[in-house]
């Protein structure tokens, strides 16, 4: 429903297809926080004359986070489960002037799309990937995800998850990505500043956003109340300047370190192809 009264226009409304609001997101979902922070970073870059909003393309696969592409008031693609990075690869290679933003959950990006994630980071291809980690397959009702901690009971691991989680920060740090960072929906200012920075870097840029999903994941770990889950996550989030890769472990017991894990200035794929000038 479009809001007509100018009194009620939010400064970020122009980033949204307001006629598609309300979103499908559950109360307490962190995706809106992440999206808002990203919009503020885009706003800042645009105001500074460093970014043309018409050149932004959002790409999402399937899942709650990928569905953010339905709400953004930009060129946007809502494509196949796991294949957002592949689609984005074609977009940026066909038109290097585009700023391609892939958004998705940990299942979409690191589960079914894991192979494409690895190869995009290996190529250091020019795109930003924002992975919103909620530790569960939420849209399909609460099945185990690649990031689900060991032992957590989900609808498909009723006796507890027998697999230790995939640490995507560690995985990508071993590849050729120019930027690998982690923030949390409990620290939206870091989402904003990392995303702002990523918008100004070439090559493959990855930001993990640790999020709250009280409705689905919260149910599995006894934190069904949105405020309680948010506060419990907030207690565990620790920002570190220049954290080591070893500190990237996600542990509900010892805490979750956020920060910029990798900052490199390697030639990007487009630069190596000769599609943009190497500075």
């Amino acid at each position, binding site marked *: 429903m479009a809001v007509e009264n100018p009194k009620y226009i939010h400064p970020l409304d122009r980033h949204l297809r307001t006629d598609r609001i309300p979103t499908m997101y559950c109360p307490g979902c962190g995706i809106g926080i992440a999206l808002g922070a990203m919009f503020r970073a885009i706003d800042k870059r645009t105001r500074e004359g460093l970014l043309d909003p018409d050149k932004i393309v959002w790409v999402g696969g399937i899942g709650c986070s990928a569905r953010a592409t339905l709400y953004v008031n930009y*060129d946007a693609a809502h494509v196949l489960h796991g294949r957002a990075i*592949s689609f984005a690869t*074609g977009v940026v290679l066909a*038109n290097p002037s585009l700023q391609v933003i892939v958004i998705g959950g940990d299942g979409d990006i690191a589960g079914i799309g894991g192979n494409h994630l690895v190869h995009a980071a290996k190529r250091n291809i020019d795109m930003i990937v924002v992975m919103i980690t909620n530790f569960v397959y939420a849209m399909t009702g609460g099945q185990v995800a690649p990031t689900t901690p060991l032992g957590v009971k989900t609808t498909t691991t009723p006796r507890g998850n027998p697999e230790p989680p995939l640490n995507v920060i560690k995985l990508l740090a071993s590849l050729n990505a120019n930027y690998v960072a982690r923030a949390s929906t409990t620290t939206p200012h870091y989402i904003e500043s990392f995303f702002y920075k990523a918008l100004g870097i070439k090559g493959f840029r990855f930001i993990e956003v640790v999020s709250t999903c009280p409705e689905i994941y919260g149910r599995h770990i006894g934190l069904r109340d949105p405020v309680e889950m948010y506060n419990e996550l907030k207690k565990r989030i620790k920002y570190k300047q220049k954290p080591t890769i070893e500190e990237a472990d996600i542990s509900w017991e010892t805490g979750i370190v956020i920060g910029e894990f990798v900052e490199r200035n390697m030639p990007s794929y487009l630069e190596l192809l000769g599609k943009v000038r190497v500075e």
Partner: protein
Amino acid sequence: MKKTFTSGNIAVAEGAITAGLKFYAGYPITPSSEIMEYLAEKLPRLGGVVIQMEDEIASINAIIGASWAGVKSMTATSGPGFSLMAEAIGLAVITETPIVVVNVMRAGPSTGVPTKTSQSDVLQARWLAHGDYIVPCYVPWSVQEAYDLTIKAFNTAELLRTPVIVLSDAVIAHLWEPLVIYDEGEVPIINRKIPKTGEKVIPYKPDPDLIPPMPIFGRGFKAIVESLVHDERGYYAPRDESYKSLVSRLHIKILKRLDYVFDYETYYCSNECEYMLVSYGSTARIAYVAMLELRKRGFKVCMLRLKTLWPLDSEKISKSCNASRIIVLENNMGKVYMDIERIFKDREVYPAPLLSLELPSLREVIEVINTWL
């Protein structure tokens, strides 16, 4: 134009270049690899990009993305890779993305015989993905036609905003023949409709020809590429009316232009004909020779060769000849036969399936046909 001597695979690559290809993503697989190798050498010099992806799934999704970024794009593969592309064929259909997918058929199922020929993927080409749709499919029988039909595939994709399949096979791929390559202006090239800059775009609102202009990325159109069933705005619409209207338009937009899409040739058809051979692709080459041989032996036999495999134009095919007995010759267990039998329901239609890893010999073909003479 210039005349050269080359293979079917290189002819496909040259056809794509003539049509305006600017982005190729692929994964090596026998017997299609020369297409990517040739383009990797040539396309960057023409301002295009060739990338070897991590698998065929990534390849086809990348060419869909590239098409939305505004360029003509293609991938080529063979059976196993084609199977992996299934889901994304559906994505290209529902998002109305012009792409060309080349399947150089080899023997299956599974890994089958990578280096040998087959025509067993003809129904896979028709209904690879889940859901209801029509994807045009061209099937060349010579090096020249591999070139010509690749151009036609791009033209069809751009005209109708649809994925198009070029169904080659190991024989055509590695066959060397003379090839005429056209210069600019010597062959019609079709480019997709794009909304005017600054125009307010309703992304899936069709023109009277049922094709919506394509709001490509980066021009301020706020394009929506939507894999969910959507309405004209591109908004998810899980409602009967939207579903019916989208899926039927996706069918009708192609059937409306059947005159353009469907192509075939007949040889020696007359009122005297008693038998008609129906064949396509590399098998049609030997079917043609068999027809000439049988005519020498006094049989009143003619031939119909399909250049377009899907969709078939039932009316044109049924009126192509009065022959009372139809023999469908193909290098598989008898697949296109099922449709030909349906089309000629008032006549005797016989399957002449071959399962030959090489181009079948004349003797082999005559033997199979002889069963029905």
